[in-house]
């Protein structure tokens, strides 16, 4: 099955690549544009593939950015021997998902300065701190954000994960962990030649809840009191039911 599909994809791509070669464009497609979080969701692995008008030595970087929102970093301090959260910093537009993939080490593709300007790399993201009290040692907090997001697998850097085939096809797997949030994910495919961006293509992945799990979530959000009462009644019913069953046994 898998083999057939691969052949099929490759065939399509070869045709595509002939068409786009002249226009200096990227053509890309995803194996899945809608990811549904249903009861059996364990994370998703999406195949990104496409064609580009490449030469020997060209590079491809793929950046997937999830919805942005508030992330709070807390720092513990020791109070009377107990480790307590004593300080916090709010990042107001931290991406809740980020994956950076490339065909080789990003440092070899772009120098530090270019990475910074084009906001590529975990440390070059434009995340803002909620205005308020001045923070000393901002760097330390920013590193903590990156470290914790990497640990939760919501952020990732996968160098050498984009396969390039004959300077005209590329392929990469994007993995969404099971704790991924819902929303629109932007997929950016960047084509570099001698550290210069020569073409770019964007595409979207839509992550949403579906089925039973989505319905429960919606009831819990929109009819929360009713949901609570139902949860209690279900428990009462099961408790009473077991008692009947075990009395007979």
């Amino acid at each position, binding site marked *: 099955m898998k083999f057939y599909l691969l052949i099929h994809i490759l065939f399509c791509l070869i045709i595509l690549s002939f068409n786009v070669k002249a226009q200096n464009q990227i053509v890309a497609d995803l194996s899945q544009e809608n990811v549904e979080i249903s009861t059996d969701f364990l994370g998703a692995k999406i195949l990104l593939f496409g064609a580009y008008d490449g030469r020997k030595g060209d590079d491809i970087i793929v950046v997937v950015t999830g919805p942005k929102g508030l992330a709070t970093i807390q720092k*513990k301090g020791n109070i009377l021997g107990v480790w307590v959260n004593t300080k916090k910093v709010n990042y107001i537009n931290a991406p809740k998902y980020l994956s950076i993939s490339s065909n080789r080490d990003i440092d070899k593709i772009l120098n530090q300065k270019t990475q910074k300007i084009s906001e590529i790399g975990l440390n070059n993201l434009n995340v803002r701190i909620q205005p308020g009290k001045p923070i000393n040692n901002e760097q330390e907090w920013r590193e903590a954000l990156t470290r914790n997001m990497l640990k939760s697998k919501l952020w990732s850097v996968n160098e050498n994960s984009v396969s390039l085939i004959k300077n005209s096809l590329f392929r990469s797997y994007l993995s969404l962990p099971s704790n991924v949030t819902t929303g629109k994910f932007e997929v950016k495919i960047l084509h570099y030649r001698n550290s210069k961006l020569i073409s770019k293509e964007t595409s979207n992945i839509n992550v949403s809840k579906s089925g039973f799990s*989505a319905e429960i979530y919606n009831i*819990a959000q929109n009819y929360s009191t009713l949901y609570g009462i139902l949860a209690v009644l279900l428990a009462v019913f099961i408790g009473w039911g077991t008692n009947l069953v075990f009395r007979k046994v």
Partner: protein
Amino acid sequence: MYYHNQTNNYENLMYIYLPIAEQPIHSLVIIGVGLIIGFIMGLVGVGGGFLLTPIMMFLGIPPPVAVASVANQLVAPSVSGVLSHWKRGNVDFKMGTVLLLGGVLGSSIGVILFNFLDKIGQLDLVIKLSYVIFLSLIGSMMFSESLRLILRKRKGKISRGKLHQHNWLHGLPFKTRFRKSKLYISVLLPILIGVIVGVLAAIMGIGGGFIIVPAMIYLLGMPTSLVVGTSLFQIIFVAANTTVLQASQNQTVDIVLATLLLLGSVAGVQIGAKFTNVLKGEHLRLILSTIIILVSLKILTELITIPSDLFSIVIRR
């Protein structure tokens, strides 16, 4: 969809995505945990929540969801337990009602406090500190009491003594007669106990059995035979109140998690109850108190050892 990572692994079929906790979990693990906790509950009459909530947090369920869902699951084994005790005439409904009035008030205060602590980022600390303080206190009390009883029985001395000790607590106003428990005490005392237990129940995700049972024995002086059934009776209402409030205030009740847990626990309670005649009460309490002390030491160690990363993250949905 074809290229989706479909490994067709049977193991994967056992995973179920929790809609509120927003993560998949192995369903058999949860049912198994429920079964063991239910067994302890049926055997000793207490010990559902205080072990369950830390286990859920250990499995990676966010503390607010763990606390609220454990409260929800507690309703089922409590209903089931009360029905069995009722049949044997082991429930003092008058005392239970007075306790639950306090309990409902207390758990309402608890949910508000819970919400506030979550907002200021100290919820985790308060949950853990409450566990350390109450578990070590109750654990050591229960341990020494049951050990003394075992040693005394070994020596062959069985002292009868008074029904219970009288102290200043019995001098409070609004004295009421609790026929079933053979007590003539102030209603303020059980109401106050109910309030305190209610607050703790809401914050710690427990029924409060492990606090209320010793309180009923040592502070109220209730007969031991009535204690378990009566405490289960009041736990139903405290847990139900906590569930509805947590659901409406914080949307943290995961009905799927709670249902998986209670499927295990209701069966466990019944099995545990069958073993109560095999094992002696004081021996059970000795074992349980040892577990309680160990759990409290474990949490204490977590609080006082230097964390591997001083920084932690909270991502708001």
